[in-house]
């Protein structure tokens, strides 16, 4: 099938110092001019620039929903910004065979002083809808957002939930041939998010093409047939979503058996080391029949109430196997944690996790979870098949856990 989006050799170069700091004052420019002759002598290549994107090639067929994933700084946002024509590429070419609407944020251009009604028109027109289109869909937008009673109230008086719902509602009623969506579904309550996802799905089944950037692997898996994985500005792979998501989750930490971080005295709590230990030894692979511990070292720089340490264990497809926090066992630490260096070990029983790769996330946060001190995607380790019940009988058992449970079987007659 002919593609609706064709991207060829796309690249985007930024000057170091970051796009944010790139504007200058006249004085700096004049200084720069005076320095130029010197600089051209001492300059060594293009060391002061980085490629945010390089050699990007892909094609997308009409009606596809394609996910774009990658860790922060992989170039996802830059790619979306180029596709939505906000920034210009440094090299390469994109051909779009349809109208594009981009949704890099909800409520772009909302003005707090204007009423809901006025903002629907303003926002709709900023997103590329015509006035007629907005008028036709107005009632639908209002009822989708569930703000009928407040439609003539300035949005500055809206609750944040209402505000987000209204903003979503306008965006959800866009009808371009190509829709480019950034991590916008991260806000709003769960029920409304589901409503938006299913609305997007409807849109896609009507032949529209959607490019969807997200950190939420669940949403990507549910919505997208194909996914593009970016890393350091390059395409790692393009393929069926489950495979790409799995690759990402695993490659994200590249089998790191130990995570180390320097001291950071300015933070209240600071993670120093995470490792998978078996009998005090560091391991990247653990046998199915072995128990092991997740070892966490952290520093408390000042006495702290409400601080807590948690771990999450994820399977390679992004499913959370379990999450656990230290106050489960030590409620007193939630009340007060004195300054000092701490070691914590979480025992994971043997004959429990099925063979495969797992990711450990660690987080240090304040009690209400409002402030996160540290939350790296810390480790990847493998449970090696040392004779799981499944392999013994030559079948791969489904499920993340493969415990050997006690069966009480009696013959009753």
């Amino acid at each position, binding site marked *: 099938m002919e593609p609706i989006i064709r991207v060829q050799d796309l690249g985007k170069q930024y000057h170091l110092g970051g796009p944010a700091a790139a*504007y200058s004052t006249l004085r700096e420019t004049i200084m720069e001019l005076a320095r130029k002759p010197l600089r051209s002598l001492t300059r060594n290549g293009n060391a002061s620039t980085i490629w945010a994107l390089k050699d990007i090639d892909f094609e997308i067929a009409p009606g596809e929903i394609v996910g774009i994933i990658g860790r922060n700084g992989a170039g996802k946002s830059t790619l979306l910004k180029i596709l939505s024509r906000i920034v210009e590429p440094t090299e390469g070419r994109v051909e779009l065979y349809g109208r594009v609407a981009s949704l890099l944020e909800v409520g772009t251009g909302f003005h707090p002083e204007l009423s809901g009604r006025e903002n629907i028109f*303003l926002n709709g027109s900023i997103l590329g809808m015509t006035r007629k289109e907005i008028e036709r869909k107005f009632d639908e937008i209002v009822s989708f957002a569930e703000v009928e009673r407040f439609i003539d109230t300035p949005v500055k008086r809206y609750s944040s939930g209402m505000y987000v719902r209204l903003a979503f509602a306008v965006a959800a009623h866009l009808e371009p041939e190509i829709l480019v969506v950034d991590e916008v579904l991260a806000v709003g309550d769960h029920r409304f998010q589901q409503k938006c996802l299913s609305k997007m799905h409807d849109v896609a089944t009507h032949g529209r093409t959607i490019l969807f950037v997200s950190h939420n692997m669940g949403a990507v898996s549910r919505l997208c047939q194909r996914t593009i994985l970016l890393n350091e500005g390059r395409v790692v792979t393009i393929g069926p979503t489950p495979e790409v998501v799995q690759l990402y989750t695993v490659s994200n930490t590249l089998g790191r058996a130990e995570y180390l971080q320097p001291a950071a005295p300015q933070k209240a709590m600071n993670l120093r080391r995470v490792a998978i230990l078996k009998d005090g030894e560091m391991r990247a692979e653990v046998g199915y029949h072995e128990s092991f511990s997740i070892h966490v070292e952290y520093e408390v720089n000042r006495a702290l109430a409400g601080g807590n340490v948690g771990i999450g264990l994820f399977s390679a497809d992004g499913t959370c196997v379990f999450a656990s926090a230290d106050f489960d066992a030590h409620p007193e630490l939630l009340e007060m944690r004195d300054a000092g260096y701490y070691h914590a070990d979480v025992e994971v029983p043997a004959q429990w996790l099925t063979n495969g790769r797992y990711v450990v996330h660690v987080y240090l946060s304040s009690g209400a979870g409002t402030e996160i001190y540290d939350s790296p995607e810390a480790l990847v380790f493998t449970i090696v098949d040392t004779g799981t019940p499944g392999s013994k009988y030559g079948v791969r058992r489904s499920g993340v856990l493969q415990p050997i449970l006690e069966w009480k079987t009696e013959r009753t007659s």
Partner: protein
Amino acid sequence: MQSFRLPTEPLVVIQPSRKWSLLNLTDIWAYRELLFFLTWRDVKVRYKQTALGAAWAILQPLFMMLIFTIFFGRLAGVGSAGIPYPLFALGGLVPWTFFSNAITASGNSLVGSAHLITKVYFPRLIVPAAAMLAGLVDFLLAFLLLCLLMVYYRVTITVQILFLPVLVLLTALFSLGVGTWMSALNVKYRDVRFALPFLIQLWLFVSSVILPSSSVPPKWRWLLLLNPMSAIIEGYRSALFGLPFDWPALSVAAVLTLLVLLYAIYAFARVERSFADII
């Protein structure tokens, strides 16, 4: 699944633009509704949360007129081409206020719309243009005040008033030119925000708002030609109060306005592609 036919030619091609890329006029036409909505937003929002509301559009030139009348008309006794000084001053202040507000608003408009520019595509020229057009509404309000004053002084309207729309158009185009240029410069050099108020204050003194151009010694008068605002403001007085037009000066002003506008659009288009990178 496919419910529409793909065009054989791409609708949009995104690639690094050539240095001499021209302004995409069809794009601006396609986004004309956005121009309307942004103008409408600026007008609606401008006097929100003010006690006097849109009266500010009238009070600004009114107070300036009173101050000018006291200091220049009475104390300094400057000439006013044979018409009452308050009328002379207001006749210049109404277009001047439009011009100065328009270039201030559009000069700061791009930087003030950073949240839009980094989040969604539309032809960027719409931003300074909308800021200028929003000033036009204030201009019309202030113009009502001028009409009242003309009634008070029993000014007889002549056919020359038919030329008024051309003058308004010239003012708008010149404001657009200067404002657009300033807005593009402002993205790169935030100095513009601080320099612009000074520039406007200086500009006021050489724009025949306070003194008629006839009070400038003849050997220096050619210098006034370099400032289209001077001829345009004198033009307003001619059209409204039935004074003779200075056609050569107006022609030069019209040519300069077009040149400034073309240069501004060219300069704007050259930096437009990097706005989102550096704003």
